[in-house]
């Protein structure tokens, strides 16, 4: 048990936001939209099994006044899950290939990453690392750490609320560090988040499972 928690926390430092599990229940279609001032990230994934999913992903990165767009085919893999009575922990990996556009030039893009999370009904902690390699623009690396607490324990059919804070480290980018306090809500199969960086830039995320 202690070994497992240490492993999750250790992987934390290897490894975005939302409940962006790349894999859901068998047959689920997951639609995710994560939006910040300097980045937007849209996913549509289909879970072939509870451990493996395929999908498409579109990423906008803004650096200065320049946007780069990447469109990728992506897989998601649940590497390991621990189901316990009062918590669940997971390790995921994902990767994809596609194309990108930057300053009217087209090139190849590839993406890979890993995510580790541990969650109870009261607390949540997750770490994600992802790298987006772009042939005509500079590569993007992001380390995301997120911690959350539920101010009340809601029943299954009630509105769930979480208070969270997210830290993003993007080496090589103008804005290398971002701290984002945010609120997460979910009700049935719909989840949404709103927040702002401490510099006042907005964040809005949305996710639904069909």
């Amino acid at each position, binding site marked *: 048990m202690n070994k497992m928690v240490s492993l999750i926390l250790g992987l934390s430092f290897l490894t975005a936001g939302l*409940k962006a599990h790349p894999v*859901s*229940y*068998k*047959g*689920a279609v997951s639609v995710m939209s994560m939006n910040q001032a300097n980045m937007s990230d849209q996913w549509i994934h289909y879970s072939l*099994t*509870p451990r493996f999913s395929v999908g498409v992903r579109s990423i906008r990165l803004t650096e200065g006044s320049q946007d780069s767009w990447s469109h990728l085919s992506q897989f998601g893999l*649940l590497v390991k*899950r*621990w*189901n*316990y*009575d*009062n*918590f*669940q922990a997971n390790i995921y990996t994902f990767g994809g290939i596609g194309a990108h556009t930057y300053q009217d030039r087209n090139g190849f893009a590839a993406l890979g990453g890993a995510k580790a999370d541990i*969650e*109870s*009904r009261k607390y949540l902690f997750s770490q994600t690392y992802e790298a987006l390699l772009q042939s005509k623009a500079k590569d993007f690396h992001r380390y995301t750490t997120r911690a959350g607490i539920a101010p009340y324990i*809601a*029943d*299954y*059919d*009630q509105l*769930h609320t979480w208070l969270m804070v997210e830290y993003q480290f993007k080496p090589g980018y103008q804005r290398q560090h971002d701290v984002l306090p945010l609120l997460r809500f*979910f009700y*049935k*199969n719909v*989840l949404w988040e709103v927040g702002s960086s401490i510099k006042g830039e907005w964040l809005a995320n949305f996710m639904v*499972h069909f």
Partner: protein
Amino acid sequence: MKLLKSLFVTFLICLPSLTFAGDLVVTISGMVCAFCAQGIEKKFKTEDSVKEIKVDLDQKKISLKLKDGKQLEDKRIIELVTDSGFNVKKIER
């Protein structure tokens, strides 16, 4: 009067179980998030034999009411829960 009060309180306490008396109760490990547990409800609702499902996150249990004359084997229950990403701990009939 005291007896009536006691009967009324007893009725209120028993009301939830009177409104949903499941034929099957399945204890599930890892079921800590209502958003993720939607998959369990969806999976069982598509099962022909299932009339009604109730998810209890506090007890980590689901209660199933079956349609008249229908059965649901343990093997199938385990398969549905596993496909939802969780593990079955106990099945009570």
